[in-house]
């Protein structure tokens, strides 16, 4: 089936900067397949290699190892102008001396399309991103959100097989960012174009993506659907980076995982192995210390009560690392509130504790 064809296949892809001892491995042997028509996100902190990977796909940089195939065609050594891929740049990179219409029509003009076709496509693209009436403005007469839309329209106009988006929302304010998320996702569904989206913002990634590759140190740490990444982090890094899990050092004992100061929680593994327990702050319940049962974490002391409107969170001390528990606002109804100094314990939802090798 056409839809199941791979949009982009990366095999053993590497990019090393510099030589000898000062060499920096920005990308280390990446194997990745991006499916056609999916919204694929490269997520990671700055310096993780996500932008390097995007630049390699776009042809702005060449790999030092491995291969890139776009819809089955090896694009090794091809410059950006020979790849069926277009890019939305981080700061938009709109041509400041050209109008909105000229920016949007630029690629079609380069491809030598007839004037009438260019005009029709530009009109369609401008309408698609909701910028009717702005065709004759220049970029410096547009707001940040409007520039963003022009950049999108410009990259979509030539009908790319893959659209690359390099942190396109990072220059927008919080409210607009929220709205552009929904619009981007809708645009991707409407056009059916494969989107490869780079971001360091986990909320963005979780909200928009079909699949996410979490990157760190030039490698893919985990590849999966947003739910898989969030609920079943593959390692410590992913657990910490996505959603900020509690990461508790522990050792596998005879009755389960023993965490210093917290008791024993049910877990299996090699006896004596050092592990990390990862628990999401919202999958814990907070109870008075007197109600502690076997398997609960405690006793702990409330160090800080943090009210954030839609949720309430507590920072707890008494273990090797401070622990966090977050209650949705509704979750507090009927439950007891706590103040700093209270002795408490924590009860994890079934299946909430993940044991990660340290």
């Amino acid at each position, binding site marked *: 089936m056409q839809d199941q064809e791979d949009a982009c296949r990366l095999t053993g892809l590497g990019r090393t900067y510099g030589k000898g001892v000062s060499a920096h491995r920005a990308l280390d042997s990446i194997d990745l397949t991006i499916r056609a028509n999916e919204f694929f996100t490269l997520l990671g902190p700055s310096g993780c290699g996500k932008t390097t990977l995007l630049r390699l796909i776009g042809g*702005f940089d060449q790999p030092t190892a491995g291969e890139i195939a776009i819809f089955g065609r090896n694009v090794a050594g091809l410059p*950006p*102008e020979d790849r069926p891929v277009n890019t939305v740049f981080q700061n938009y990179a709109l041509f400041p001396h050209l109008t909105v219409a000229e920016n949007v029509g*630029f*690629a079609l003009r*380069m491809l030598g399309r007839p004037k009438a076709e260019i005009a029709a496509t530009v009109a369609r693209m401008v309408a698609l991103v909701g910028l009717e009436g702005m065709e004759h403005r220049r970029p410096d007469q547009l707001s940040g959100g409007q520039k963003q839309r022009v950049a999108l329209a410009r*990259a979509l106009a030539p009908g790319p097989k893959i659209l690359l988006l390099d942190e396109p929302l990072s220059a927008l304010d919080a409210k607009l960012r929220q709205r552009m998320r929904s619009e981007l996702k809708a645009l991707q569904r409407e056009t059916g174009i494969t989107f490869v989206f780079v971001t360091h913002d986990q909320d963005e990634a979780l909200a928009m993506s079909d699949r996410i590759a979490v990157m760190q140190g030039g490698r893919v740490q985990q590849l999966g659907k947003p739910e898989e990444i969030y609920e079943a982090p593959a390692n410590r890094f992913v657990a910490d980076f996505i959603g900020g899990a509690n990461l508790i050092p522990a050792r596998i004992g005879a009755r389960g995982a023993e965490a210093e100061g917290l008791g024993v929680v049910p877990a299996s593994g090699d006896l004596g192995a050092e592990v990390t327990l990862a628990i999401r702050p919202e999958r814990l319940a907070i109870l008075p210390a007197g109600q502690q049962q076997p398997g609960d974490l405690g006793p702990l002391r409330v160090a800080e009560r943090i009210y954030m409107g839609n949720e309430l969170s507590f920072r707890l001390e008494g273990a090797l690392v401070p622990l966090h528990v977050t209650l949705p606002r509704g979750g507090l109804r009927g439950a007891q509130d706590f103040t700093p100094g209270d002795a408490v314990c924590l009860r994890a939802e079934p299946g909430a504790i993940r044991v990660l090798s340290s």
Partner: protein
Amino acid sequence: MALFDARAKDIRNLPGFGLTATLAVAFLYAPIVFLVLYSFNAGRSISRLDGLSWRWYQAVFANEEIAGAALNSVLLAVIAASVATVMATAAALAMVRMKVRRRAAAYAVLNFPLMVPEIVTAIASLIFFSSVGLGLGFGSLVIAHTTFCIPFAYLPITARLTSMDPALESAAADLYARPWTQFRLITLPLLAPGLMSGWLLAFIVSLDDFIISSMLSGPGSTTLPVHIYSMLRLGITPEVNAVSSLMVLASALVVITSGLIARKHS
């Protein structure tokens, strides 16, 4: 109330600033004011005013030698500035793509001629052109002027280029523009104000040059500054003032044009 009052640190609020500034400006412009004033002298003296007239300007415009020298100067400045601008643009384009350390080295090499005393460059050029058999004349002047114009043209061009978003060329490539088209449709139009300022600066520097021109000009290729100097030796009349005033006017026009271009694009 701002936490930090910027005005307190403003140099303009220091005592005596106004007086110092006035004296400095007066010192800079007083000679030029006198030069222009005496160019309108009705008499032959350059130190005693005998009424005002246009006679020395009429004398300048009637003097064919001055016209020839002026034509030489302008032609030379146009050619030198144009060639220097092209070469400086090529240098700037290459250098913004260099790594920082190499760029610093290239920058030093390019700008070193600015630090060398001009008389040294002049004598070196004279000896060099004689020894390679090029001789004196318009050709040698063009080569020498082009050479010393390059660093002047380079500065505004590279300033403009470094302020340009390098992603723009990437974007053009991404949108299927070939390298030459990227340059023609994106880089060049955005670079235009820098090219204009660079060209004008080079033009003025070439037009005003005396030392190198006096060494290298041969018969028939005398430039205006060299000719003015030779007029002095024959006895000074306000005619010298008049032709010098015209050069001041030409320079001022170029500087104002350059400033207007810079302001329009800032």
